[in-house]
């Protein structure tokens, strides 16, 4: 009789023992499958974050050794930067480099505008220091989508589009301000700047929300977030042509953070930057912050997989050892009829493997349910945990190795024993 037939007969006839092993292996396999699925979901989510956030390179003036002696005024000594600035030529050159997904220069409160044909949401004090009333601040940006408030999710564009490089005389305003003035995308607003003493008309290309409920008891209109907006950088250069000859800082986004170093190298090799007192640095802070929980989850799940595998092997070995002790009579009989030790170990392995195969089949739907629950528990991480067919080969390999180890450990002492001793003990 072949060892496979003996194994099948054992599994079919020794139902209680087989059921105990089956249940144990099913639970272990379910845990393993769920853990593997969670780990993969975390990897997928991390990859998604990587694509969404991208790698970031910051180009900024190098102030080391490039500051003047300083000017004394009533506030103290004011030092001025004497080096090169980030010019539009440099921005154009960088935007043409391979691997650059986008760029942004963001200057908060770069422009103060008073509403010529619209009004701001009023504050506690009406400080009408311009002919058109009180002014509110606007962030000058090349690409508003990349601005901190939009990146963090604090603000969301509800209508229209973002400011992009090449835009001119455009603005984004808050939904609250738009509703207050009956403004909409496609319309325009006229603003007066005390700094330039000029009225400029801006087209409203986008409306964002996220300012609601943040006004509080503001003293001035500029303290009300809903009154603040975004304008394009090109208009800033037009309005301040004498006082503004470059960007304060430029953030360059790479397609993939893993490619960020080569993009950085390509930027630093640009002739437009040669000899300039500008410095480049790679900023992974944002990606690290967003991906840290996922990386941490991956690490803990990897550890969990190792622990489950180790505990699973130990429990399986223990169960099989108990089984082998009860199996001693059969081993003695099989040895006495000339069945080789290897053939007996193969039978034990086949029994465990057959039970494991059925366990695996049962574990797939069971772990589907646990994976769903795990996905719900991990909702803050936006993980979609699913059991796919691709998990079965690695689980089969892990299971095979675990069973082989458990069988080797459990059968070692008994199979090594002298058949006469085994039979004497049976008697």
């Amino acid at each position, binding site marked *: 009789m072949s060892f496979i037939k003996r194994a099948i007969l054992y599994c079919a006839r020794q139902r209680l023992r087989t059921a105990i092993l089956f249940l144990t292996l099913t639970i272990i396999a379910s845990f393993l499958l769920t853990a593997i699925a969670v780990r993969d979901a975390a990897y997928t989510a991390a990859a998604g974050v990587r694509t969404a956030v991208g790698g970031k390179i910051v180009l900024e003036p190098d102030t080391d050794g490039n500051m003047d002696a300083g000017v004394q005024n009533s506030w103290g000594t004011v030092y001025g930067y004497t080096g090169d600035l980030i010019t539009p030529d440099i921005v154009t050159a960088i935007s043409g480099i391979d691997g650059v997904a986008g760029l942004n220069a963001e200057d908060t409160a770069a422009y103060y505008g008073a509403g010529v044909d619209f009004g701001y949401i009023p504050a506690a004090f009406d400080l009408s220091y311009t002919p058109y009333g009180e002014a509110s601040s606007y962030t000058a940006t090349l690409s508003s989508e990349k601005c901190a408030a939009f990146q963090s999710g604090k603000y969301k564009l509800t209508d229209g589009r973002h400011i992009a490089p090449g835009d001119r005389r455009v603005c984004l305003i808050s939904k609250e301000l738009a509703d207050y003035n009956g403004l909409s995308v496609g319309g325009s607003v006229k603003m007066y700047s005390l700094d330039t003493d000029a009225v400029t008309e801006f087209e409203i290309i986008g409306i964002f929300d996220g300012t609601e409920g943040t006004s509080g008891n503001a003293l001035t209109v500029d303290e009300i977030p809903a009154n603040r907006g975004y304008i394009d950088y090109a208009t800033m250069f037009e309005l301040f042509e004498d006082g503004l000859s470059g960007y304060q800082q430029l953030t360059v986004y790479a397609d993939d953070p893993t490619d960020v170093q080569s993009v950085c190298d390509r930027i630093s090799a640009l002739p437009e930057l040669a000899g300039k007192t500008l410095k480049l640095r790679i900023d992974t802070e944002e990606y690290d912050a967003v991906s840290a929980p996922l990386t941490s989850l991956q690490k803990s799940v990897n550890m969990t997989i190792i622990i489950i595998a180790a505990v699973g092997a130990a429990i399986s070995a223990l169960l099989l050892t108990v089984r082998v002790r009860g199996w001693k009579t059969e081993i003695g*009989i099989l040895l006495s009829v*000339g069945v080789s030790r290897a053939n007996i170990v193969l039978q034990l392995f086949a029994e465990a493997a057959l039970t494991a195969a059925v366990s695996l089949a049962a574990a797939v739907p069971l772990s589907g349910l646990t994976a769903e629950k795990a996905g719900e528990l991990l909702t803050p991480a936006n993980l979609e945990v699913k059991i796919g067919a691709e998990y079965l080969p690695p689980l089969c390999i892990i299971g095979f190795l675990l069973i082989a180890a458990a069988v080797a450990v459990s059968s070692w002492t008994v199979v090594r024993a002298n058949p*006469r001793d085994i039979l004497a003990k049976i008697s």
Partner: protein
Amino acid sequence: MSILEARNAAYSYDGKKAVLKNVTVGFESGKIYAILGPSGCGKTTLLSLLGGLDSPTGGQIIFDGEDISKRGLAFHRKNNVAFIFQNYNLIDYMTPAENVALTSKKPPLPILERLGLTREEAKRNVLRLSGGQQQRVAIARALASSARVILADEPTGNLDEDTAEEIADVLRDCARKLNKCVVIVTHSDKVAKRADETVRLKRGEIYRG
């Protein structure tokens, strides 16, 4: 001519306590042998050495003119000898037919029927058979193999007198009709009387008194 032979076979535990001392004895095909002796005299040890369940600490076990250690004890157990034990040693989750099939690819039912089991009994779990029936299954398993020597250790020890005599007759028939060499370790005089030859052991040595 002996098919199975112990030549100066000795066995001791840890090299100190000698269980068998230079035992030389031969067994021929077609004959039934009874090994007799008081408890602890080495009967079962001699049977274990003859069957390749253990190796002698001195001397040789010869089968068909060749030392059994040359081809390995597992080979000897598989091809040359078959065991019958006092407690039957059947695999308890198998049927009689499946137990017989452990040692042979021949159809088990004719052998079992020849030994008095019905077809229905041959498909029952062995634990649902009487002691005599279980021993017949053990004999059937031994006969189904191609072994030329059957080694029986107290095969009637757990059976009532009538059944014991029936089993002894079956074993004698095996020797006579099938030309097997049957070696039985026994305390039973009734079984011993059916033997062609008796070998008496005393304190690990052949006793020729």
